[in-house]
């Protein structure tokens, strides 16, 4: 049952991810990316991590991608024609993309990945994983957590400064 659900969502994720890079219209690409995020969330649910799943949908699909769409719609760029200003980047793209694929193949081939004992739902955490995540964030990962909040503060101040200058 779980494996069937996994393959259905995996197929959609791969198809949608291809759509992100192959579709000509930027709005369609953004929509395909939204589909990727939602289906990834479904996979987190299969991995018994509903909190991560909800956060994935809320933050990536619900906030970040909506802002992408917002900008795309305001700028209303022409659909990509295939030829244009970005042409010289093709050689670089092929080079670095090829290097990345090679690296991934090497890593996966050389790493000893233990076979999963049983695919499917892991035993449910009784208090819910939210409790466990909160506990970890405020003990072991307190410093990275606080540094992240500082980063966000810097970004916010930066935005306000930029917006004030114009007015």
């Amino acid at each position, binding site marked *: 049952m779980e494996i069937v659900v996994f393959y259905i969502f995996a197929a959609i994720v791969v198809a949608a991810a291809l759509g992100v890079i192959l579709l000509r219209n930027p709005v369609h690409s953004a929509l395909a990316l939204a589909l990727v995020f939602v289906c990834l969330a479904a996979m987190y649910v299969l991995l018994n991590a509903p*909190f991560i799943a*909800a*956060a994935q*949908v809320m933050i990536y*699909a619900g906030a970040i991608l*909506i802002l992408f*769409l917002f900008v795309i719609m305001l700028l209303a760029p022409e659909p990509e024609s295939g030829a244009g200003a970005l042409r010289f980047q093709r050689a670089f793209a092929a080079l670095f993309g090829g290097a990345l694929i090679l690296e991934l193949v090497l890593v996966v081939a050389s790493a000893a990945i233990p076979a999963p004992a049983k695919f499917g739902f892991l035993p449910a955490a009784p208090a*819910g994983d939210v409790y466990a995540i909160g506990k970890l964030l405020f003990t072991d990962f307190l410093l990275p957590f606080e540094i992240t909040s500082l980063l966000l503060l810097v970004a916010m101040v930066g935005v306000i400064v930029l917006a004030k200058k114009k007015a």
Partner: protein
Amino acid sequence: MFLDPLLLNIIITLIKTIVMIAALLGAFAYLTLVERWVVARIQSRIGPNRVGPRGLLQPIADAIKMIFKEDFAPAQADKIVYTIAPGIAIGTALLAWAVIPLGPPLMIGDLRIDLQIADINIAVLYLLAIGSLGIYGIVLGGWGSNNKYSLLGALRSTAQLVSYEIPLGLALVGVLMISGTLSLRQMVEQQAGVWNVVWQPLGFIIYFICSVAETNRLPFDLPEAETELVAGYHTEYSSLKFAFFYMSEYVNILTVSAIASCVFLGGYQGPLGIAPGPHWLILKIALIIFVFMWMRGTLPRFRYDQLMNLGWKVLFPLSLANIFVTAVVLLVIGK
């Protein structure tokens, strides 16, 4: 039982889902009628009273009219996006109801039937996530129509929904700190004695204002301000596609009212724990929706900058202050 438990479970869930969708769409149809009655009363008009006794068959007449209208699409529209947008709007609106607990579990013989489709332990986050997906219906509808008014309406509504989502979520955090659970069922069960609104009056007010903004209702109906934008994001929609947008708006009103009832007003619990059951939840939802309609009949629309000021400079700091005070009080009483 002679049935496999997994199969039985799937069948029960399917039946619950179908009943829930039918009930929601029925509620939508009659909400439109009630809204027209209430607003007519506020504006000293008579309101619908021609179709059937006291106008009771009006929603059915409206539905038939809607189905037989021409399904028109603008020539320059992005056909795929234009078509899926209403589907996303109504789909996400209905999905939210999967986690709303309607009443205490029913016992039929040995079989326990929860009056809730799925009791997941992150229900509150699920609702926020589904709510944030609902924006897609509006944005895509506005962009896909290839119409200036539609696009402006969609952009306004994106800004409005994203801005008001933040204080809405933060208003719920205060309750989460008190209840210590993200499951709506547990939250409702904890409120058998005292409702959360007693501990979180400010949270409730912030949540209510934000939920009005999230459902695009007056005084926050800027996305479809008819004097400026014709009809906003659904200007180019007709027939059943328009009906889907219309439905999703009313289902969203039902959803935010149901969340307010479950999180702040005790859900299916009666006052002082008297006779818990779905009737209390329905009564509370009806009361909240009446306030929605009352506001529509009496308040003028906000200006766009006023809307943003209210969201970011008033509601957002207030909701943070609410969390801070709640945390300090919880720390002092050592809970």
